[in-house]
């Protein structure tokens, strides 16, 4: 009974996602988003760094530019991927680079472990279909 309810819910979620996904901007074919630097596990003294944001087989455009095969970077810090059928949140855990930037300067990472992940957004800050996101990496800021 419970299993059937879960299955029904799962189908609802899947179909719901598909229905909305139909309206999303198609992702460039074979595109791959990745963090060029820092590498996974990097130790960052002082908590200040440039994050280099990479995309293969796709291009970067500022927000508002509605062209094919482009998007802009979002850097997710210490958070999981947001829902793909909604606008990417904009807060201190979801940094938007709507100016078409390809590098992000981080200045205030406190000591501890932090995760970084990239997610591309289209001209309306929506993830593409399929969504383009990088692996999630962990960096370590030692005590100052």
């Amino acid at each position, binding site marked *: 009974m419970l299993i059937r309810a879960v299955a029904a819910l799962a189908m609802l979620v899947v179909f719901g996602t598909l229905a909305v996904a139909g309206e999303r901007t198609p992702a460039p074919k074979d595109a791959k988003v990745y963090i060029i630097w820092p590498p996974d596990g990097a130790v960052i003294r002082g908590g200040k760094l440039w994050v280099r944001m990479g995309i293969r087989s796709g291009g970067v455009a500022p927000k508002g530019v509605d062209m094919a095969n482009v998007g802009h970077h979002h850097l997710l810090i210490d958070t999981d991927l947001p829902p793909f059928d909604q606008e990417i949140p904009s807060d201190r855990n979801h940094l938007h680079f709507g100016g078409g930037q*390809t590098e992000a300067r981080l200045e205030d990472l406190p000591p501890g472990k932090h995760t970084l992940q990239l997610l591309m957004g289209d001209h309306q800050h929506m993830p593409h279909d399929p969504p383009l996101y990088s692996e999630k990496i962990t960096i370590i800021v030692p005590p100052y």
Partner: protein
Amino acid sequence: MTSMLRQLAACLVAMTLCSGIAAAAGATAPDNAYLYIGWPNDGEVLPANRPFRVWFGLRNMGVAPKGAAMPNTGHHHLLIDADLPPLDQEIPSDRNHIHFGAGQTETMIELPPGTHTLQLLMGDHNHMPHNPPVYSRKITVYVK
């Protein structure tokens, strides 16, 4: 007849002045924009007959596809075995001046054995260098 020649001369002068004005009108770039080749390194030795990735580093400025006139953005041009072109004219488009008008931030290239130079130059939505021009250091790679 003389008056016609004079008119023609005046017309030519006007055209020259106009193109001078147009040439000076490359989009403005931030003074602290920094363009560099993230990889390969200067002096890198690369194996022949194998394409290699060149990635384009840009700080304090953004990337936009050609035709998208947004402030503080431009698109990358990779100069291969060429000096900087005139900075008051459209960047040439040929095998020594590769345009990345789709907003790409990296590319794969293959070069014949020998010594080669690589340099990046940003162009605005009209393929004109910015004011001030934004270009990287010229690096040398050895293909063996």
